[in-house]
């Protein structure tokens, strides 16, 4: 966020406070959305980049109707940029701690939308409407992705529907 030279200190403070309020509400949603799509490490990194971008462009983003949806797209773009930086490293070498070792591969085998819908719904507890808004699809579409995603996970992990 660039404040023009001579901007009163109380105006700067107001900008910081309004961004702080936004951050507290939006950061978990943005991070969860990107983690659901890209995994823990890449998703967290993309979310951090997107939030930094939000602060740097707060004068514009603060007036958007759906800033989290916009920043979700920003995060997706940062993800690609970040991956491009990693040339020379093996992207598959990124490791994350999993209680269920087979889960990452099973999630990876889902389509992007299935993975995002399943993880947001059943890992992060989002409503179908919230997922639909983030992904830009209808609620029935999200329900379809969740249902089919769970079916695939059960088949892949050879687990049941109930404990």
């Amino acid at each position, binding site marked *: 966020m660039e404040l023009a030279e001579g901007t009163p200190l109380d105006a700067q403070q107001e900008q910081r406070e309004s961004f702080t309020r936004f951050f507290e509400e939006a950061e978990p949603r943005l991070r969860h959305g990107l983690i659901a799509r890209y995994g823990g490490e890449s*998703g967290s990194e993309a979310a951090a980049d997107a939030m930094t971008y939000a602060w740097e462009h707060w004068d514009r983003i603060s007036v958007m109707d759906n800033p989290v949806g*916009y920043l979700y797209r920003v995060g997706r773009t940062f993800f690609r*940029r970040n991956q491009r930086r990693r040339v020379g490293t093996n992207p598959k070498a990124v490791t994350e701690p999993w*209680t269920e070792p087979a889960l990452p591969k099973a999630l990876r085998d889902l389509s992007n939308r299935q993975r995002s819908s399943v993880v947001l719904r059943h*890992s992060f507890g989002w409503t179908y409407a919230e997922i639909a808004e983030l992904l830009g699809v209808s609620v029935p579409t999200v329900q379809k992705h969740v249902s089919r995603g769970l079916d695939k996970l059960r088949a892949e992990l050879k687990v049941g529907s109930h404990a």
Partner: protein
Amino acid sequence: MRDVLQLLEQYREDVEAEFPPQDIEDVLGLSDSRTVRISRVPARRRWVAAAAAGAIVLALVGGVAFLGQLIAEEDPPVITQPAPSTSLPGPTTSLPSSTTLVDQGVAPFMTWERVPPQASLGAGDEQHEYLMHTVIEGGPGLIAGGRVRTAGGIYWYDMPAADDEAAVWTSEDGVSWDRIPAEGSGLDGPGGYSIHDLVAGGPGYVAVGAAVEDGFIGPAIWVSENALVWTRVDSAGFTPEGEMSPASGTATSAAVAASDDGIVAVAAEEIWFSSDGWDWQQVDTGLWKDFSDVAYADWGFVAAGEDYEVVRDDSGGVFRENERPIAATSRDGLTWEYLDLPEADTWFGAQATAIAAANEEVVVGGNYRTNGNLGGSINNMPPAFWTSTNGSDWDLSHIPQFSVDGIPNASAGIRSLAITDSGTVAVGGWWPPLLTQVRAFWGTTGWLEEMRNAVWVSPAQGEPWREDPRAGTFALEELDGQIGTTMGFDDIAVLDGRLVGVSTIAGEAAVWIGEWTD
């Protein structure tokens, strides 16, 4: 047996423990020392990405004085975190034998004048924005396509919003335009639609673009006998689901070309063919080539775009590396051969973004990276042109650095070309360095100040390409000196020896008439 829902709940705990929430103080602190830039853009619009952050390059070429001026007007050009492989070569000194440099600083070759604002182009309509994406010779004189959207908010260049209306305009002379009413035209529907390219072919005319329906985006194709009433024909055999973000490479139709025997539409990695415009089949290319444009020469179809290597990460994300300009040729539209377009040995990747053909001559326009910053943030991207008369042998022209109005290290995007009796014209946009390119392709019209119209001219086949020194500024003049709200020229057509360029400025479809000077 464990429940899959339990595993997914555990997934959250695992992730939260390993990747805790971000600290806002980190965000506020980071923002004081880092400038964020984004480098990926959609097919055909990819050229608007990258560049910016050229402070180091500016210093190398002596642009320090200008840098000071720019810093005073724009965001601080702080550069951190350069990619490990970044290198900054000086001006190109070694070129292949087939390469010629582009002359700069020459007198104007053309005069351009914007046609008067009119209601059909959006004048006086505060509720909507009129985006004119393409224009061809046809109908009463000219046919243009694009979309009309609700004013305000963010829009994506290649992806219509759910309530965008596909739009077709006609004109007898390029000066006065009529918009076909959407209702009853066959262009309306339950979703959002946009027309990206037009061609004379099939039953009369073929329009290609994008449709967003029920949350899914995909290609859309319409046909018309008279450009007034259209029929959508892509309901079967097309990709049912694309990415919602154009930055990830949507499969929205980008371009179309026609021969006497068939029609070819290209979009990102996909090619479709139709013998009549009504029935389409997707061509199995077997390879991932990102096509931006297609044309038909006497000897066959030519598609231009870029090749790249696909890398997939552990979570299924796909990204690209080692982008190279390519062309693909086909005699029948069904069987394609690929070739790498020539590159200078000092380049760090390039992309071909536009193509035009006349008789046996083909001209491809694009741009190239001047250094190896993989993120594209420390880059300027001058224009490059390739020409061929048979699809096999290609000559290359490019400039080592690009300057407009004394601003060094600008970047350029070529969106459309026209081959005329008086020479070949390339149109598109340019943007100065040090600016955050994300604004160029994301955002409201108020965000698009970096993109400015640009025209390059090759007076005759084999002659060097030259930047038209007037073209870089006339969009600004139209706005009384305000930093413009334009994304540069979208397309260009020829009518009675005159050039007609289309674009969007401040929410209105903007049309310019260009004429050659003596």
